[in-house]
């Protein structure tokens, strides 16, 4: 595995090294917390970020597997279209916003406005999440194993939101529905795939009360 040391380098230099090295092998990046927008727009390969990472890690990811071995900054996997992003620690504000596809797994907690405007990705947070998580979601799945803050799933338009713990308050246009057997099977498969220790049967499902909540 090729290792890129980001110390004292700018984003352009590190990005060039990563893209050059990705051809056929995984790349490890270390000392990169000062860089924001690392591993942006990659279509293939595996990038492992050792230690804490900055903001916008894996932005516009389009097929690569990106692994943060510790905590990550704000806006991880922003606008992802394909691929997988895994965070071993916690994620900051706005994790996995604007995603169209792929899978994001945060094994720790995630901040406010996580999964905002999700348009098709599967976003899993194993710990707790902050306020306004899942705002304006249009498609895809959001799975929170822990607890949520205020305005959970606010202004939900379409898509499925699952939560294992409690929420402080539910957002506008939301409705709690019982889990179907299909939901349980899907959640079980997801938990097995990503080795998440949770019982699907204990989760609650939230859907949009109306698909057209804003205008006549």
């Amino acid at each position, binding site marked *: 595995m090729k290792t890129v040391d980001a110390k004292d380098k700018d984003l352009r230099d590190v990005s060039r090294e990563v893209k050059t090295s990705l051809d056929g092998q995984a790349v490890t990046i270390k000392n990169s917390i000062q860089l924001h927008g690392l591993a942006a727009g990659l279509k293939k390969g595996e990038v492992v970020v050792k230690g804490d990472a900055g903001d916008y890690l894996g932005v516009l990811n389009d097929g690569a597997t990106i692994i943060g071995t510790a905590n990550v900054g704000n806006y991880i996997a922003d*606008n992802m279209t394909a691929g997988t992003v895994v965070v071993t620690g916690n994620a900051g504000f706005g994790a996995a916003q604007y995603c169209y596809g792929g899978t994001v797994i945060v094994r720790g907690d995630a901040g406010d406005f996580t999964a905002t405007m999700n348009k098709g990705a599967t976003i899993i947070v194993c710990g707790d999440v902050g306020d306004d998580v899942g705002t304006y979601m249009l498609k895809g799945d959001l799975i929170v194993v822990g607890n949520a803050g205020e305005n959970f799933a606010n202004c939900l*338009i379409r898509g499925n939101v699952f939560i294992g713990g409690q929420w402080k308050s539910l957002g506008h246009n939301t409705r709690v529905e019982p889990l179907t057997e299909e939901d349980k099977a899907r959640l079980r498969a997801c938990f097995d795939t990503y080795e998440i220790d949770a019982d699907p049967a204990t989760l609650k499902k939230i859907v949009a009360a109306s698909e057209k909540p804003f205008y006549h």
Partner: protein
Amino acid sequence: MAVIGAFCVSVNKEICINARMPGKCATCAEVCPHDVYGLDGFSGEVNVHNFNACVGCRICAEFCPTNAIRINPAEPEYLTRYPWTFAAIEEVHYKAQTGEYLLRGFGTHGQTPNFDMITVVPSQIASPAPLDKYREECDMSLTIGEDTCEKPITLRLPFVWPAMSFGALSREAKMALAIGAAMSGIATNTGEGGLVPEEAWLARGYSDKEMTHKKWEPGGYLVIQWSTGRWGVSADYLNAGDAVEVKIGQGAKPGMGGHLLGAKVTEEVARVRGIPVGSDALSPCRYYDVQSLEDMKHMVAFLRDVTNYQVPILFKLGPSRPYADVAACIEAGADAISLDGMVGGTGCSPDIVTQGVGIPTIACLPPAVQALKDHGVHRKVKLIALGGIRNGLEAFKAMAMGADAVGFGSAAQVAMGCRVCYACQKGNCPYGITSQRPEMRARLDPAEAGKRLANFIHACAEELKIVTMLSGHKSIREVSTEDLRAMDLNTAALTGLKLCGYERPLPFWEEALHPGAGNGNGHKSP
């Protein structure tokens, strides 16, 4: 219902086909976007059953096969009945009946401060002498991003089509804009609705996806918009164009995001935007993934990285606090800034926002230019003026006030055939420009509309050339506020231009314009 004003609709029954042969023609009822005409399904008769709803667009008159319809303003209500004009009364009735606020398309109507009260100062015996438009050259090209990216863009003319999204516009209209841009050597813009595949090659002048057959010379450019809704956005999308534009706001509804109602989210629009069919596509009013100017700098950095440092990064601003907003864009790393005045257009917006929010274009330019000057980047970071600019003369005035280029948004729609009915949001545009209905779209031939757009640009370029050269300049980059005069006190106060006759800026501007005496318009230097 009437939201614009009252108009008298009169139909000459002697030549109206329907009046003579009910059922044989109902064209007016079919094309009217506001249901002014009622068609009796039993008798086939068409009657003016809701003339109060007429907004004076005259689409019915244009489509009428026998030229039987006349539309005239009903009365000068703003003189006789203000504030309770007919439109105001109808608006209250509508809200009382429905509990809904008004939505409409296109842009601001009525009087706002504009370029009309600015005049151009021609050259005479004093230097510089005027130049001969028929014999001498005038350089009107403009390059964006020459020092910041690998592939700067050089517009042949200082014009752009501003961002107008697929969804708000039909696919055919987007294609026409791309063809018009290619024929004129200017840039078109995806808008925030994702990329219509054809735009990518049509804008460059090619008729085929592989870009082997160059059909339209000299070829233009495609600007890819990155917005708060992020519709249809991917790494491939960003790399499909010649520049990336970060949308912060727009003139018609600054402080709000885009609105595309579910009625216009057809299967094709949904596919391009990456959302379910029929779902309302509401862009947030701000970026959820930006909380500070530092974040915005990081965003620009990763956009440059994803596009491999090849293309310029533009910003688009609505009319808010031009000095501070332009300064922020400069700090964030913009190569160019599109600044949209309040008269700028939209596919859909709350009526009150389009009508009553924002700053007129002529008042946006002086503080924006001052911000560029204070940062030492005027004419380096390019300023593109948008918002109600309709011809080459207004383009000249904007550029003499400090802009490097202008955009024609609403004018482009009119050039394609639009009659300004203010109902773009309904999706029933009879010209196929803002409709997603196949039968409407079929009326708009992209190649023909593209030619009309190119003709319009050609005419505006000639106008711009005339005025530039009669002012004594051989390049559009030489023009300045010295080439302009304000014709009334209001315009002089808003713009800082010299007042006709007085031959100086108004006193408070004179103080602000002198070095060391502040920087104009009450804004502090950063």
